[in-house]
């Protein structure tokens, strides 16, 4: 393990107002912030991990029912959303690059684009949810999944109860993911405001970097959610 014994005395004249009193140097502060965000993401991995665990077990138990339920979701929308998120990840790194190279206008543009992609993602998600709601595929009293064939077994219908477990996991996992997107949009609104105020310089843009880490992580979660939820046994 490498350590930062970062305790170089203050360089006078370079003092940044964003340097908090308890840090010795800006480098120490920046490293702490990004390290803290990485650890927070480790927490997030385990948070989703519990859901993945439940998902894997039931998918193995009720594979046919899960496949049938999965097939009822609109995979094209899911794929589009994946692409949207990937584009938003690109705009995030471009925003950071712009900050590093002192292109304030580009940075603001990229932040706005990121947020637009985020909103688009949530919009598409909303359409999906609306479809599911109208098809009575939302778990609960009005849930119904009768006479849905199991892929590859034309004479067999999915067990609605088991399909309901799929949809429960689908809604909890994508819902939690969407919640993270909403939080991400909040963070980016704040970043945009900071960028607008000209707080970010090539020298100091730590909030942008750690906000970006969060955004990319949410992207990674989706990268797994998409094949696991949308693409079970989809082939004709």
């Amino acid at each position, binding site marked *: 393990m490498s350590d930062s014994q970062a305790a170089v005395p203050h360089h006078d004249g370079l003092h940044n107002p964003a340097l908090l009193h308890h840090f010795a140097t800006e480098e120490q502060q920046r490293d702490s912030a990004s390290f803290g965000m990485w650890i927070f993401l480790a927490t997030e991995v385990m948070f989703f991990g519990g859901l993945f665990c439940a998902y894997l077990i039931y998918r193995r138990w*009720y594979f*046919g029912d899960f496949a049938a339920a999965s097939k009822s979701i609109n995979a094209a929308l899911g794929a589009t959303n994946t692409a949207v998120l990937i584009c938003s990840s690109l705009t995030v790194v471009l925003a950071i690059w712009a900050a590093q190279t002192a292109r304030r206008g580009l940075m603001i543009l990229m932040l706005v684009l990121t947020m637009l992609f985020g909103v688009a993602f949530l919009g598409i998600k909303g359409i999906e949810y609306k479809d599911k709601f109208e098809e009575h595929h939302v778990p609960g009293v009005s849930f119904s999944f009768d006479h849905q064939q199991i892929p590859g077994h034309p*004479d067999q219908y999915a*067990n609605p109860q088991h399909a309901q477990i799929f949809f429960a996991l689908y809604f909890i996992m994508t819902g939690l993911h969407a919640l993270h997107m909403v939080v991400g949009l909040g963070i980016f609104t704040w970043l945009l405001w900071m960028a607008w105020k000209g707080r970010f310089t090539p020298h100091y843009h730590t909030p942008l970097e750690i906000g970006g880490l969060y955004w990319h992580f949410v992207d990674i979660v989706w990268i797994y959610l998409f094949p696991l939820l949308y693409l079970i046994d989809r082939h004709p």
Partner: protein
Amino acid sequence: MFDNFPLWPQRASSMAGNVDALFIFLLIVSGLMTLLIFTAIIYFAARYRYRKGVPAEQIEGSIPLELSWSLIPLGVFMVIFAWGAVVYFKGRTPPRDSTEVYVVAKQWMWKLEHAEGQREINELHVPVGRDVKLIMTSQDVIHSFFVPAFRMKQDVLPGRYTVAWFHATKPGTYHLFCAEYCGTQHSGMIGSIVVMEPAQYEAWMSGGTGGPLSATGEKIFAELGCVTCHRSDTQGRGPNLQGVFGKPVQLEDGRMLTADENYVRESILDPGAKVVKGFKPVMPTFQGLVSEEQLNALVAYVKSQSQPGAGVAKANAAVTAPEGAPGKGNQVQ
């Protein structure tokens, strides 16, 4: 005073000795370790107490010591582990020709039904010296079947069967507890196991009414119309159930599994889950249509179909000549 102040539980099953032996071994091992550590601490604390002008002597540590006090305990632990595993496997593996009792747990009572048809509540009569296998399920929450004198405990789960077994060695009445917290009257979900001499047990048995559980099962089997598909020839829309139980089954998706109690149970409640190769998933579900007791009877019936020369006549004969009698119990597990 000591009548009411026991320090060791009664020992009334074949497992009790095994568990106690390991427990005593553990007591000795941990007693020795405690003695060693406590003696060292007390001795050092007294011998090296603060004295004016006598400074502490700094010692860095010692790798040989560290290794020995990690590896030696590890060796002891492995002995404990292996011994514990052997005892556990013994306790988890019911002997082949056990007498079977179906247990249905619910808040807050135990319902027990002998394969011969006797029903009991919160009380189980068993003969001494016979292997008894419990096939257990719960109607509501998780319970746990615990008989301290037998050193036996198994959680009873809703939605599936769990199995436990014991071999009582001493006549008497023993506590039956629910050991998994199950709600308000959890502490009231207690009962007793009455272990009787074989002759007494036969007498008690003959006092009962009703046919064997498998016969009840056969009646239900007919009433629900199962017979129309599960025919005793190869023409039915469902598999012929004769000789199926305990045998490997090939499923429609190629998997192989053994037709055990849980498989039969699942096939009744969720027929589409594991369809036998060569059959269509046409069977309707019976979830909600049969009670746990009826389910048990059906399982017992399917099971009876795999006993040698299976049939109603034989199953009826079981009343007069209970299973476990010599030459009877070659039921395949």
